[in-house]
């Protein structure tokens, strides 16, 4: 009985949950931000991208992560990457590291010897994971993945619903997601240093935006100054 009431109340509270993510770790931890910039300066001496270093200082929105500073993968994630390796024949150049963590899922990345990278999304609620390897398109690329049931007549019945993708654009800073009902939200871009040198994002679409009339419509890649760098239409949510 408690579980049933618990489920009912979760459903009842869901529309009241404010999905806006205005988190800012660098505001919490300015000493670490200074240290990160210092590390980037050193990394630049070691031939890391100068563009990454320059924008890391001036851009307030995007997060810059040194690849090697990411959380090492637990055994299930490592096994999934090993499976990639065997199935695709693509050799990994370094063990996977976590680059984005959300309440619903986390995104893991491993560079490949060919110069690209493999990504894997691991759900928090299960052992389920999915990923891919290969070169990315220039600019912005985005995928929608549904991890719960959905109705044959249309409509998502359970989540999570994830938007994930990459931004292969050095000036990229953040993403703006627009919804059918006119609402917008900002998605943080996590720029990962060499050997990956690419921006990543992972966004669990809030429950109130699963329904027709409220679903995501377009994702726009923005520079630090707010200039639109690239745009993709979002499709795939029934």
């Amino acid at each position, binding site marked *: 009985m408690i579980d049933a009431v618990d489920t009912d109340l979760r459903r009842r509270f869901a*529309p009241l949950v404010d999905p806006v993510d*205005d*988190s800012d770790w660098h505001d919490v931890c300015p000493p670490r931000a200074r240290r990160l910039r210092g590390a980037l300066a050193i990394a630049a001496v070691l031939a890391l991208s100068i563009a990454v270093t320059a924008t890391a200082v001036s851009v307030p929105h995007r997060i810059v992560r040194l690849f090697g500073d990411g*959380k090492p993968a637990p055994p299930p994630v490592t096994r999934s990457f090993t499976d990639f390796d065997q199935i695709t024949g693509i050799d990994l150049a370094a063990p996977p590291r976590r680059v984005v*963590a959300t*309440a619903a899922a986390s995104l893991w990345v491993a560079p490949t010897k060919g110069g690209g990278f493999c990504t894997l999304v691991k759900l928090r609620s299960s052992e389920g994971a999915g990923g891919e390897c290969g070169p990315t398109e220039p600019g912005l690329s985005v995928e929608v993945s549904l991890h719960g049931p959905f109705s044959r007549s249309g409509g998502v019945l359970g989540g999570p619903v994830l938007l994930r993708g990459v931004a292969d654009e050095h000036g990229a800073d953040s993403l703006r997601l627009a919804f059918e009902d006119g609402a917008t939200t900002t998605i943080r871009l996590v720029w990962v240093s060499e050997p990956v040198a690419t921006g990543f994002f992972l966004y669990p679409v809030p429950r109130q935006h699963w329904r027709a009339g409220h679903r995501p419509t377009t994702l726009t890649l923005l520079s630090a100054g707010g200039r639109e760098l690239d745009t993709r239409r979002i499709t795939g949510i029934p």
Partner: protein
Amino acid sequence: MDARARAIEELYAERYVAFRNALATVTGSRETAHDAVQEAFARALAQRHRYRGEAPLAAWVWKIAFRVALEGHRRPLAVPLEDSADPALLHPELDPELDAALRRLSPRRRMVVFLRYFGDFSYAEIAAACDVSEGTVAATLAQAHAELRTALTPAGAAR
């Protein structure tokens, strides 16, 4: 970065929005809740050597956040912290029936409900955050569920 600092950063990445939403029921706005959560995590980082790992990290940081939120309200602390808050829905107009039902709960019971449904806290986390046993949390939620089930109509629940 040491392991404890990394764990705090991970907690922030995974739970920031939930913390802010739960705390907004105490502070009364998203903006003040944001400020309180930011300050709480900054304090947690600075004082991380004091975290002994006996309680879930989320509960330890929540207690700091809760104290920061009440400091912001400048409430007298002559009464126990957990009894000095009167949490409420931020936008009662979105579900007036739920708001009315919640207002009939005691503030302490309401806080436990908000921790559960806005903060996404487990029973163990709520227990540590409120300095009670998990059994007490289960009993408190069961009583709150019973009161809410009586007050809420099925039509409203199905909205």
